[in-house]
């Protein structure tokens, strides 16, 4: 009897154990399910990971860009069945604009044969630069990242078209100069530089100091830490005290909107406030009427009247394949994402033509990007006539150094207010070359370029 009870007890215990093991297995399956690759690298597809951020403090800028990037490539999948008849496998990885998480994303996607990586953060781009050549995955850091990586001879695996931050800064300065009646008029003037105190915001500082010396103006720095993006009032008090003749903004995420708001609160004249190309419609809208007159650089259209965008509406938004709010399709940062994906798609298309393969690799796409030549005719064929200027990359120049233009916020939308502003090549080029050389020297064992140079396709 005793034995029997003991046996029953033992039986119950084993059963319980089995049950609990089963339960934990089930739980583990539920928890791990999202981590399993979604039919990742099939033989007849090209894997394009998208490092994006739809959460966190920078989501305000990250969401429209993520939507634009994803929707354009989805449109190619829906309309054309991918590129060259090969479907693109798109997978987003959420970085939260956090460098650590970005690297984690990169490690997670690396094994799935990505043909390109878009870090969408200067902070994430910098540590990826040395890995690109080793892992054979080209980096596309579109108009952000390391300015010096425009030098294709030193950085064969990194591409940052269509303009570097140094180009952008020189364009802001030459625009301000033109407004004042000549760059020589900047002498004795005071320029305030308000920037996100991170790799991104500090990137243009060497050139800014150089230009200040060359043209004789004074620079006041107003750094904003990421945790104080929405708590800028003391820096704007400094602005009130220093009374800079011009303000230049290098912000991202919640910082841009807050800066414009603070400028309005402080009574800083909006027509003296300029920015690099990152503030979006929402950043300005929040301030309302007082934001009128604020100007930022840009290089593409900030409206939705293009065939490529109506194709996106037809094939993606109307089919409910987009996460974007339909009203935001065609806004500035959405279009920025579209432009980014246009570069990805052109890189892949070129790679297919160069290699003769349908399913290309990261190495092929590197060659494809290097021989990219998006001329007016090609833009028209893509339904982007007038959307942006033609761009051509070479083995030595991975950037293009395109001219940009100034656009002004009119209270509802951005309106183009200037002609093309070319970068100050004579100022930027020498600095860029020496920075690239420095980088190679400081990173002992930096490989000499061994990649052959293709003829443009």
């Amino acid at each position, binding site marked *: 009897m005793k034995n029997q009870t003991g046996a029953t007890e033992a039986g119950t215990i084993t059963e319980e154990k089995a049950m609990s093991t089963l339960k934990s297995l089930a739980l583990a399956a539920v928890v791990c399910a999202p981590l399993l690759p979604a039919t990742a690298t099939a033989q007849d597809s090209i894997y394009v990971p998208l490092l994006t951020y739809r*959460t966190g403090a920078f989501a305000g800028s990250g969401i429209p860009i993520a939507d634009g990037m994803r929707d354009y490539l989805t449109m190619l999948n829906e309309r054309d069945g991918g590129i060259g008849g090969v479907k693109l496998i798109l997978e987003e990885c959420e970085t939260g604009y956090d460098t650590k998480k970005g690297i984690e994303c990169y490690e997670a996607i690396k094994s799935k044969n990505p043909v390109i990586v878009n870090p969408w953060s200067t902070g994430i781009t910098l540590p990826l630069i040395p890995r690109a050549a080793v892992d054979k995955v080209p980096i596309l850091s579109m108009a952000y990242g390391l300015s010096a990586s425009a030098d294709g001879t030193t950085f064969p695996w990194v591409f940052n078209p269509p303009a570097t931050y140094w180009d952008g800064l020189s364009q802001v300065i030459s625009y301000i100069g033109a407004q004042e009646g000549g760059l020589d008029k900047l002498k004795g003037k005071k320029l305030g530089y308000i920037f996100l*105190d991170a790799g991104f915001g500090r990137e243009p500082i060497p050139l800014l100091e150089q230009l200040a010396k060359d043209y004789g103006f004074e620079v006041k720095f107003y750094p904003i830490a990421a945790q104080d993006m929405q708590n800028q009032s003391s820096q704007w008090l400094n602005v009130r005290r220093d009374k800079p003749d011009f303000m230049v903004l290098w912000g991202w995420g919640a910082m841009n909107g807050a800066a414009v708001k603070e400028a309005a609160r402080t009574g800083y004249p909006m027509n003296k406030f300029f920015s690099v190309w990152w503030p979006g419609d929402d950043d300005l809208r929040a301030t309302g009427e007082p934001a009128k007159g604020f100007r930022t650089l840009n290089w593409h259209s900030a409206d939705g009247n293009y065939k490529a965008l109506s194709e996106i509406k037809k094939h993606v938004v109307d089919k409910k394949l987009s996460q974007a709010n339909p009203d935001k399709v065609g806004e500035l940062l959405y279009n920025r994402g579209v432009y980014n994906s246009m570069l990805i798609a052109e890189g892949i298309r070129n790679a297919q033509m160069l290699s003769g393969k349908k399913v290309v690799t990261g190495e092929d796409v590197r060659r494809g990007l290097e021989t990219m030549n998006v001329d007016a005719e090609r833009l028209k064929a893509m339904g982007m006539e007038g959307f942006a200027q033609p761009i051509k990359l070479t083995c030595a120049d991975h950037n293009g150094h395109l001219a940009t233009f100034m656009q002004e916020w009119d209270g509802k939308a951005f309106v183009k207010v200037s002609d093309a502003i070319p970068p100050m090549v004579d100022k930027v080029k020498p600095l860029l070359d020496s920075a690239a050389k420095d980088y190679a020297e400081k990173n002992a064992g930096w490989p000499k370029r061994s990649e052959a140079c293709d003829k443009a396709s």
Partner: protein
Amino acid sequence: MNMLYSIFVEPFVLMGSAPDLLIQTLWEGLVAGVLYALIALGFVLIFKASGVFNFAQGIMVVFAALTLVGFHEMGVPALLALILTIGVMFVLAVAVERVVLRPLVNQPDAILLMATFGLTYFLIGFGELIFGGSPKQMITRELYLPQGSTDLDLLGGLVRFQHIDIAAAVIASLIIAILAVFFSKTRIGRALRAVADSHKAALSVGISLGQIWVIVWFAAGIVALVAGIMWGARSDVSFALQIVALKALPVLILGGLTSIPGAIVGGLIIGVSEKLGEFYWGSLVGGGIETWLAYIIALLFLLYRPQGLFGDKIIERI
């Protein structure tokens, strides 16, 4: 010598020569301080009643503000949305008591602290799921909050008072006063203080711990809502606000975790001194010192008064 001059002489010369800027800096510091105090108050209320350091207070600010704006975006009139949001904060308080606190009664403080970390991540994810990650504009006008500013010609210069800042200072002071009266004069308030002194003794005289917890979490939720509205009106409502809320930590070190006046005075000291520090001394080290100055001040306080300005001196017998 030059360095000494720019530390000890120049800032004071500037204060004397441009008193309008000094007043403006003090005002900005005061407004920031009141808002810090409001956020710190949320921490203090919960800590006093349950001994839990509520790490989720920062995200509660964001969550409350997002709920308000979210309701309004769905077409609910602003004032009704405000009432509904208060309702949501009540539901949240009840849920926290039922799901988080009740099962953890009598567990070490560290466990409860970790549970509030969990709550933080839950609220971040839940908030993003419902409202999305994009920043939203605070419905300032719809809530009849004043906009615009008054410029005063003072002492040969211009001092600008934003109406929304004045409103923030007034409303925050009112809330603080109401809470102070509520917790010192009412029955529930006395029960709360009893719970704060000793859970066991309070239980033995028939005070319901669960009820008290719901009340303080609800009060902390309302404080979070007010802080969210005011800070949201200054910039906008986004998840970045959560980081600003962490400014309450040095305030708490300064004011003591258990003292309501401490939170207020601590908030004001931190707010004013970080603005003064940034404005008059920040440029000496390249600016941007505001981010860490508050912690340095708090650390200095810790050296001399570990219990904070008004905190209870903890004497533990061994």
